[in-house]
């Protein structure tokens, strides 16, 4: 992995850890405990299953493609991160559509804003990389710079699914009252 990318990666990791700490402290201050009800726990279990099977499928497909083409499609760490983002996306989207992503009483507005922020940060990194001449694909091989693209796609999927579900819920709310 190139040294400049390691620094970008560490910065991203630091941002994620800082965000996690800030959210945890805010939740403790507001004495809000994230809790899922029995139906949500069941739905989350099914989503974990789907994410696990998706990751297995992804590993098999990537492995078989490398074997058949007799060359690596991307560096191992790039393939690993894309797989993690892919399965995390499957879990998040399945949870969102089974109404089990947000805890009891939790509003989706915060997660919409957070997803938009992560997408924006990744867009800045992608554009900077392109500007610096760092290609996402080189000689038919995905470079480490594609990790940001995969991360961006994950959060775009979460943002879009949350938005669609929120709008659908508002429509059903009006009819159920």
């Amino acid at each position, binding site marked *: 992995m190139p040294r400049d990318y390691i620094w970008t990666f560490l910065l991203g990791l630091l941002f994620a850890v800082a965000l996690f700490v800030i959210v945890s402290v805010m939740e403790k201050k507001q004495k809000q405990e994230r*809790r899922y*009800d*029995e*139906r*949500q726990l069941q739905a989350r279990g099914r989503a974990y299953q789907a994410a696990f099977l998706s990751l297995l499928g992804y590993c098999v497909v990537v492995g078989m493609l490398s074997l058949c083409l007799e060359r690596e499609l991307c560096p191992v760490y790039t393939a690993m991160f894309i797989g993690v983002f892919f399965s995390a996306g499957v879990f998040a989207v399945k949870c969102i559509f089974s*109404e089990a992503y*947000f805890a*009891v*009483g939790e509003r989706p507005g915060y997660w919409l804003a957070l997803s938009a922020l992560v997408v924006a940060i990744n867009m800045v990194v992608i554009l900077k990389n392109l500007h610096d001449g760092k290609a996402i694909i080189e000689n038919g091989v995905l470079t480490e710079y594609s990790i940001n693209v995969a991360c961006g796609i994950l959060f775009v999927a979460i943002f879009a699914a949350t938005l669609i579900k929120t709008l659908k*819920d508002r429509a*059903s*709310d009006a009819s*159920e*009252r």
Partner: protein
Amino acid sequence: MKNLKLKSARAALDWSQQQLADAVGVSRQTVNAIEKGDYNPTIKLCLAICRALGKTLDELFWEEEP
């Protein structure tokens, strides 16, 4: 199968799904799923709903045989 008994008991108290959900500590979507018959609640949740609405298990969840 839709749980119309639950829906009508809730409506009799003029409660929204959200109000019932808050009273029993679940999400509004869970109450909606029970009323639509998409989710089969545990006995623990059934009892909590009965207590919140002042009804018995029979009155809300017993299904007459066809």
